[in-house]
């Protein structure tokens, strides 16, 4: 049992049928998250990170659909699973935290309602017990006087506090996996650090696996065990977080790292990746990054195969770079 990864995606394709054609949001993604492991899924807006997250939890609504591939959760296949079965997994074994805490709680329902319903959707427990468990969960994520706060409405909380509530809800059933979709993006930097600390502590205490979706490399550096870099619906590079950040091989990864401001490089111009993410309807054939890549040549017009340049690392590039990104 212990060698079965908590989550395993194999060649996942999630597409949206639009009038302009089939939009391939997730294009052959393969990744795995071990028990208790934190995987950072990094990429810019529109790279398919969030759609990957929603695919895992089974919340892809029409016109979207999972066209092919496998999603294995603790060895169990989720693709093609009936909706009631998926619903039993959702919130109980796989939880999700969203990006904007101002939008994730229903504004007209009290916190206790929104927490207790999560417990009672999966377990037959009395209202009193559900309430006391909700109160404990609020306490664990660091909300002061949880007893009173239970009867409050979402608008009476700050953004950071709301995200704590959302995390408390996600942790109610001790899920094996939490899909966190940029949960700190909408928060102040100081609050961001607090939220990260709370999640890190609770997840490691309970052995919860995390799929942490973000565009913020500094968050990944502090939190994740491994990182997968996503570009235009594909994973272009993955590996242990230190290895990838210290020695990025894909030119896109290097671009991402180069565009993070650093104290050591004051006064220098920030590097930019030229151009924009290609439209998912009109991706260049071969390596999708080649139109923006300085190292691209004719070879890049065919799809680069997955290679393992080092143990534990995977890469899709014909011209891997070496060494740290120049300061």
């Amino acid at each position: 049992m212990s060698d079965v990864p908590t989550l395993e995606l194999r060649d996942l394709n999630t597409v949206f049928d639009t009038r302009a054609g089939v939009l391939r949001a997730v294009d052959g993604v393969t990744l795995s998250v071990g028990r208790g492991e934190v995987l950072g899924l990094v990429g810019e807006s529109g790279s398919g990170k969030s759609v990957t997250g929603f695919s895992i939890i089974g919340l892809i609504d029409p016109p979207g659909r999972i066209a092919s591939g496998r999603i294995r959760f603790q060895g169990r296949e989720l693709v093609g699973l009936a909706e009631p079965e998926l619903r039993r997994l959702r919130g109980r074994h796989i939880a999700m935290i969203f990006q904007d805490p101002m939008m994730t709680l229903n504004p007209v329902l009290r916190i206790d309602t929104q927490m207790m319903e999560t417990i009672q959707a999966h377990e037959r427990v009395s209202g009193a017990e559900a309430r006391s468990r909700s109160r404990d969960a609020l306490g664990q994520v660091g909300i002061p006087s949880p007893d009173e706060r239970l009867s409050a409405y979402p608008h009476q909380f700050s953004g950071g506090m709301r995200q704590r509530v959302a995390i408390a809800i996600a942790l109610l059933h001790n899920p094996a996996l939490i899909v966190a979709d940029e949960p700190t993006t909408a928060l102040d930097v100081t609050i961001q650090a607090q939220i990260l600390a709370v999640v890190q502590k609770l997840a490691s205490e309970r052995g919860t696996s995390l799929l942490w979706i973000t565009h913020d490399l500094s968050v990944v550096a502090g939190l994740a065990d491994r990182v997968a870099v996503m570009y235009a619906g594909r994973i272009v590079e993955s590996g242990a977080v230190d290895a990838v950040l210290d020695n990025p091989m894909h030119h896109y990864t290097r671009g991402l790292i180069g565009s993070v401001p650093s104290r050591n490089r004051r006064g220098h111009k920030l590097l930019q990746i030229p151009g924009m993410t290609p439209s998912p309807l009109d991706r260049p054939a071969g390596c999708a990054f080649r139109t923006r890549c300085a190292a691209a040549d004719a070879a890049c017009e065919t799809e680069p195969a997955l290679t393992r340049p080092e143990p534990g690392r995977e890469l899709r590039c014909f011209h891997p770079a070496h060494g740290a990104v120049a300061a």
Partner: protein
Amino acid sequence: MAGWLVRRLVQAGFVMLAMSAIVFVGLHAIGNPVDILISPDADQAERARAIAALGLDKPLWEQYFFFLRGAVQGDLGRSFVFNEPALKLILGRMPATLELAVTAVIMSVLVGLPLGLFAGLYPNSIAGRTVMAGSIMGFSLPGFWVGLMLIMVFAVTLGWLPSSGRGTTAELFGVQWSFLTRDGLRHLLMPALNLSLFNISLVLRLARAGVRETMPLDYIRFARAKGLSPRRVVFVHVLRNILIPVVTVVGLELGSTIAFSVVTESVFAWPGMGKLIIDSINVLDRPVIVAYLMIVVALFVTINLVVDLLYTVLDPRVRLGGRA
């Protein structure tokens, strides 16, 4: 909260005062009731006596002042035609209209809300599209014509329902009501349906728009990600949010349904206030018209107040009195 209520009541007083002045001046501008009320072959002395008896010989401002003094004491004048207090006349007809309007509004919610939820959840299904197409008819078909068609089909051709009157009534709180007897309900059904048709479409479209707007929001996705049943997501998370606009509109529509049920009351010979006001306008029975409009204004003000209070129940972010 108490301060808010007092402020609202004072505002309501001013609204009613302004309304009374406008109505008073307006009615004097459109015609002289004496011409209609007094027989043309009456002699000069008779005419003068009648005018004096109705209080129409005094200047306008004095008549208005006289009216206000009476109004404060609950006397809105005597009908020229029936020689009865106007207020009593109207209140006597009010239960019939109230029961018709309230039934119509209840029907519009009971029918419109479920259909709207359905059309919002399945916007591309054939049934959903049919519901939406049908709602266009509810908007655009004129009420009197639908009323006539209802009578044609259900009263004349099929003979299922009676076409006019209130039927047997029963007493409750000293007032006669139709909805308490089986026969009365049969009489109530058709006019109420006729009156509710527009509101059914309105509620339906509002509910549909609300569902379409709410479903893709993050908090609904989050609710689904928690593993809640679709029933709970729709009937608790979605419904609570779309009730806010629905309550506003239903509240306002209740007011206008009561005030303007004239057409339906005429078609179905329903003895309510609408019939009375039309007759009174025809003979320029000023006190009744003024009193009727005052009551309608009071009704609107009250309904708005109730809607505002309901808001605080439905939407916790609303705090009356402007304090956070």
